[in-house]
C-alpha cells in the first residue's frame, strides 16, 4: 500500500510533465495533421534555456530567493522556447505545407537532429547537474518504517501544471484565438474564407505548444536536477504516446494520456523491472495504435475516397 501510494505520487508528477509535452503534439497534429517530431527536442532545449538562466540569476546576479528565480526562469524559458518553435515552424515546416505528406515529417526529423546536435555542440555533451532548488516535503503516511512523502518539488509540479492547464483550457475554449484554432482544425480552407488568418493561427499553435513544453522543461530540470542534450528523444516519444493514447487532437485526452503513461511507467519500474520501463512505454504505444487508433477520447477517423 505504501509503495503503491508513493509510486502513485511519483507517477502523477512524471505524468504531468508528459501531459504538458503531449499537448504540443496533439494541438499541432490536430491543426495541420503532422507529427511534430522535433517537439521532444524543443522540450530539451527549453530545459537548457532554464538551466542557463537559472545559473545566470544565481551565480552572476546572486539571487537568493529560489522561488522568485524559478518564476523568472520559467517566464524567460517560455518566451525563448516559443520564439524557437515559431522560428522552426517558419523555416522548416511552413514552406512544406501543401507539399506531399511525408515532407514535413522528414523535415521535422531533420530539425530534431539539428536541435539535439546544436545543443551538444554549443553546450557540450556532458550531463549538466544543478544543486537541488529546494528540498523537503510532507510525510503523507508512515507505516512499517516506510514513509510516503510528497516533496515540495512534486507539489510545485502539480500546482504549476494544474494552473497552466486551466489557463490553457480557457484560451482554447473562450478566446477568439481558441475559436480560430478550432475552426482551422475542422476545415482550414473554410476558416480562411471566413477571414481567419490561418498562417498566424498555425504559428500561434506552435507557440502555445512550445510554451507548455518550456514549462515541462523547467519542471523537468528542477525535478531531476540534471539535463543532457539527448534528453529530448525518449520523453518526446513518451509524450507522443500519451497524445495518441488520449486520442490525438483531444486536449483533455493528452493530459489523461500523459498521466496514464507516467503512472504505467512508475508502476512498471516499481513492481516489475526498471530496465524494461521504456520497453513498456513503447509497447503501449504500439498496442494502442494497433488496437485503438482513435485513442481514449479521440474521434474515429473516417476514410474517404
Amino acid at each position, binding site marked *: 500500500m505504501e509503495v503503491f501510494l508513493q509510486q502513485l505520487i511519483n507517477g502523477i508528477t512524471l505524468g504531468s510533465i508528459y501531459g504538458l509535452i503531449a499537448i504540443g503534439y496533439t494541438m499541432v497534429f490536430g491543426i495541420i495533421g503532422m507529427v511534430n517530431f522535433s517537439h521532444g527536442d524543443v522540450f530539451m532545449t527549453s530545459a537548457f534555456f532554464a538551466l542557463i538562466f537559472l545559473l545566470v540569476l544565481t551565480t552572476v546576479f546572486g539571487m537568493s530567493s529560489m522561488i522568485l528565480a524559478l518564476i523568472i526562469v520559467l517566464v524567460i524559458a517560455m518566451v525563448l522556447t516559443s520564439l524557437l518553435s515559431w522560428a522552426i515552424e517558419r523555416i522548416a515546416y511552413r514552406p512544406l505545407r501543401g507539399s506531399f505528406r511525408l515532407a514535413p515529417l522528414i523535415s521535422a526529423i531533420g530539425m530534431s537532429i539539428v536541435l539535439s546536435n546544436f545543443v551538444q555542440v554549443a553546450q557540450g555533451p556532458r550531463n549538466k547537474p544543478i544543486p537541488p532548488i529546494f528540498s523537503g516535503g510532507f510525510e503523507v503516511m508512515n507505516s512499517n518504517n516506510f514513509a510516503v512523502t510528497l516533496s515540495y518539488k512534486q507539489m510545485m509540479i502539480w500546482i504549476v501544471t494544474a494552473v497552466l492547464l486551466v489557463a490553457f483550457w480557457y484560451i482554447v475554449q473562450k478566446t477568439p484565438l481558441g475559436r480560430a484554432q478550432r475552426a482551422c482544425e475542422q476545415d482550414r480552407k473554410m476558416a480562411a474564407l471566413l477571414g481567419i488568418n490561418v498562417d498566424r493561427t498555425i504559428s500561434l499553435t506552435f507557440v502555445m505548444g512550445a510554451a507548455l513544453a518550456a514549462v515541462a522543461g523547467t519542471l523537468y530540470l528542477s525535478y531531476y536536477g540534471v539535463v543532457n542534450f539527448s534528453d529530448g528523444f525518449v520523453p518526446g516519444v513518451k509524450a507522443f504516446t500519451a497524445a495518441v493514447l488520449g486520442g490525438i487532437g483531444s486536449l483533455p485526452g493528452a493530459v489523461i494520456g500523459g498521466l496514464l503513461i507516467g503512472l504505467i511507467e512508475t508502476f512498471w519500474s516499481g513492481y516489475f523491472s526498471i530496465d524494461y520501463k521504456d520497453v513498456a512505454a*513503447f509497447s503501449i504505444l504500439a498496442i494502442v495504435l494497433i488496437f485503438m*487508433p482513435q485513442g481514449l477520447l479521440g474521434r474515429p477517423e473516417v476514410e474517404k475516397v
Partner: protein
Amino acid sequence: MAAEDTASKHGPDIAAAVKDALLSGVVALALFGPLVGLRTEQNMRNELVIQGRWGLVAAIVAVIVIGRFLILTLVAPALAQHRNRAAARPEHPSALRQALGKWFAPASIAFLFLYPVLIVSLLGFQGSLKWVDNFGIQILIYVMLGWGLNIVVGLAGLLDLGYVAFYAVGAYSYALLSSHFGLSFWILLPMAGIFAALWGIMLGFPVLRLRGDYLAIVTLAFGEIIRLVLINWRELTNGSAGISSIPKVTLFGIRFDASPDGFAKMFELPLSSAYYKIFLYYLILLLALLTAFVTIRLRKLPVGRAWEALREDEIACRSLGINTTNTKLTAFALGALFAGFAGSFFAARQGFVSPESFTFMESAIIVAIVVLGGMGSMVGVALAAVAMIGGTELLRELAFLKAIFGDNFNPDQFRMLIFGLAMVGIMIWKPRGFVSSREPTIFLAEKKAISGSLVKEGHG
C-alpha cells in the same frame, strides 16, 4: 511570400529586406545568445559556471543578418526569374539530359568496380585503406540499406522508421551464431537475411491496418523495443558492452590474416590489411547490386506492380481485388531480408556489434536517404547516400580547418548537425528528392517520365 512577388516584378525591395533581415537578427540573437553565448561548464568543484562567448554570438548573428539580406535581395529574385523562365519553356529534356539518364547507371556501376583499382594505383595499398573502407564500404552499406528500405517506403509507400531493427537482427544473428557455433559467413548470410525477414513479417503483421504517420510511429516503437531488449538481455547479447571478436569473412576458405595459409602468404604478397578491405568492398558492392537487381526485376512482376498500386491508392487496390495483406507483408519481408544481409555484413566487417550502432538515428538516416533520393528512384537513393554519408565522412578529413579556428576545433562534432541541416534544406529546396521524375514500370504505347509531383506517396 508577398515580398517575393513584388521583388520579381520591380526588383528587390531594399527597405523590406533590411527590415526582414534585422528581424531575423533579433530572433537569432535571442536564440543563439543564451545557447551559444552562455556556455555552461563544470569547474573544479563540479559546479556549473557560465562562460561568455559573445564574439561567437556576434559572428553568428552577423552571418544570419547578412545572409538573410542577400537571400532576399539577390537569391530570391534570381530564383523567381529562373522559375518564370522554366515555366515559360515547354518541358523537353535536352539530348544531354536524356543521354545522361541512359548512361549514368551503367557508367557508375563500372566506376564502382574500378574504384579500388583506381585508388590503389593512385595511393598504394596502405594509402587506399581509408578511401576504400571509410568511403567505399561505408557508403555502399547505406546504399544497400537505402535500396532495401526503398522497397518498403519508395515502392509500397509504407513509412518504416524502425528499419534499423532488421539491420540489428541480421548483425546479431551473424555475431551470435558465428561466435557460438563457428558457422561460416556464407552460411549465415542467407540465414541472417531469413531471420530478419521473419522479424519483418512478425512486426509487419500487427501494423497492417495502420496508415501513414501512425505506421511510422509504431515501426519506430518496434525499432526502439528491439534495441532496448538488446541492451537489457545481458545473458544473450552482453548488453551495452556488445559482442566483440566476431569471425571475419573468408574467401573460399582462405583467411585474410598472417597465417601460413592466409591470403597474403598464399599469393606471396606482402602483408597488408588492404586486401581484406578491398575484398569486403567487392562483397558489399555485389550485395548492393543484388538488392538493386531483385528490386528492378520484382517491379515487373505482379507483386511489384501491386506495391506501386498500393502506394498510389490503397482503396482502389482493394477494390481491384489485390490482397493488400500479402502485398504489404512481402514488402516488409523483402525490405527486412536485405537489411538482414547488410546487418550480417556489418557485423563481419566491424568484428564488433553493440546496441549503440542501431539507434533511431540510423533509421532516420536511412529514411532520409530514401526520401531525399526521391522515393522509388534507385539512382536517386544511391546519389543521396553518396551525398549524405560521403559528405559527412568528408568532414572528418577537414583537418585544415583547425588552422583557421584553432586547435580545439573538431569538425567531426558538426557531422550530425550538418546532416540534419541538409535534411531540412533539401526537403525545402526539393521536397520530391534529388531524382524527382521516374519512369513508369508499365506503360501504354509510349514511355514518358512521370514528374514526382504527380506521384502520390503511400497512405498504407
